[in-house]
């Protein structure tokens, strides 16, 4: 005869019932604002002190004379091996490394090698791919994340920021409320699933001879070359089209086509993986996000910058 398994819900209820018998602690008899001083002046101070003692929690240096609340600059690295030997306001994170900033209610995880900077106004993403997650969804002041062409004001949110050295980047809002503010432009409110891209300077437009008709002809020629089995020609035409002002939806389709061509017809997995990475960077949250993600899962991880089409 087998022993019946205990019921989890009943177990929880029993625990809750037992816990509910606990009297209210003496410290809570008075409201916090009426007490002379908090019993624990800084939350988690004990833990923080312990971690500090072994050098795993570091105080982020204040940039210059700007007054920064020291409590707001506590940083916890996860895993601990991600912590740098010397802490500076500029921080490099390897892929998979995360930092938690308890006083901001913020966790930042590097999905690719990244650099960011802590300023008195918030954070500046210098380069890389960073996932920001802020659990606080209620009354709070927004955290500001600066990118090359503006800033993100974030209340409760999960979002992904990509930024390259050249000043191009994007943000993909995954949860919560946020808006993108750029100088001289109306704020852009981003809802979950929404993406915004930016460029530091005016995009380098190809010569004006790229008329709509010419683009249509090039698309048709690339398609024809592919159908005829002239894959190298199709590759060259698609690559050229991706540099033309074809509009992002068309470019995305062309890019997906090119990736497929490299992968299945030209049998060049290295170039294909590089291309899929470039595709993901250029079209974050695009219509091919899932199939491209699946293909990237099969790609060897590495620091390959990818084919820059």
């Amino acid at each position, binding site marked *: 005869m087998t022993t019946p398994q205990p019921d989890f819900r009943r177990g929880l209820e029993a625990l809750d019932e037992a816990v509910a018998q606990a009297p209210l602690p003496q410290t809570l008899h008075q409201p916090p604002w009426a007490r002379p001083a908090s019993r624990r002046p800084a939350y988690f101070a004990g833990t923080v002190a312990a971690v500090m003692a072994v050098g795993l929690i570091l105080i982020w240096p204040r940039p210059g004379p700007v007054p920064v609340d020291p409590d707001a600059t506590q940083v916890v690295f996860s*895993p601990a091996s991600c912590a740098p030997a010397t802490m500076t306001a500029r921080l490099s994170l390897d892929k998979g490394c995360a930092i938690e900033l308890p006083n901001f209610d913020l966790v930042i995880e590097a999905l690719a090698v990244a650099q960011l900077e802590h300023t008195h106004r918030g954070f500046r993403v210098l380069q890389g791919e960073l996932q920001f997650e802020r659990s606080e969804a209620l009354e709070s002041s927004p955290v500001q994340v600066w990118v090359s062409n503006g800033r993100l004001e974030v209340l409760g949110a999960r979002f992904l920021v990509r930024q390259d050295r050249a000043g191009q980047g994007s943000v993909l809002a995954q949860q919560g409320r946020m808006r993108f503010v750029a100088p001289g432009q109306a704020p852009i409110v981003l809802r979950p699933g929404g993406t915004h891209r930016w460029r530091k300077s005016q995009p380098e437009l190809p010569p004006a001879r790229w008329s709509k008709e010419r683009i249509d002809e090039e698309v048709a020629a690339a398609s024809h070359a592919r159908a005829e089995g002239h894959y190298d020609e199709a590759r060259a035409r698609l690559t050229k089209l991706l540099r033309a002002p074809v509009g992002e939806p068309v470019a995305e389709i062309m890019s997906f086509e090119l990736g497929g061509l490299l992968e299945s017809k030209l049998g060049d997995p290295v170039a294909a993986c590089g291309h899929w990475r470039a595709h993901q960077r250029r079209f974050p949250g695009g219509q091919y996000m899932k199939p491209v993600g699946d293909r990237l899962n099969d790609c060897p991880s590495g620091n390959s910058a990818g084919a820059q089409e």
Partner: protein
Amino acid sequence: MAAHSLSWSTSVPAPMSDSERLEGLYVEHRDQVYRWALRYGAGDSEFAEDVTQEVFMRLMRALPRLSDTEKLGGWLYRVTANRCLSRLRRRRLTQTILSGLGLHRAPPCVLEDQLAARQDLQHVLETVRALPAREGMVLTMLHLDGLSQSEIAQTLGLSRGYVSKLVARGTAKVRARGWEVGP
């Protein structure tokens, strides 16, 4: 013209000051907030105390903007749940680091005296504390608070699909520890 039945109070009480109002709200709701925090913190009294303080400090700041204190219960519940989740996640991270260094200690529990005598409580406590913060929270809200997955998602500011995933993951871990988990 339609007749309206109106009843007027003959004497209007003097309006309460904000601090009096806040004081009254604290006395009225502190036990409930502390209980919720104890529940989500799996009996950790220090955790619950800190959360309670924090929630009422937030109430103090937010009170002028809260138009309807009749609905304060819902506001307090949401804030408490979010504060708990935030702290549990933070605690989890530091515990991971401390465990790696062999410095981890179990959080204090209001049931210390009872645990030795009650194996059932010890078992469920270990199970809950072993769960990742979010999974523990959503399972507690689902099974104890009786919230639907949509309500949990709304309260914690998560997507419905993500909550569903957390419930599935958490349930699998609970089952792996030998528990029966109903629908």
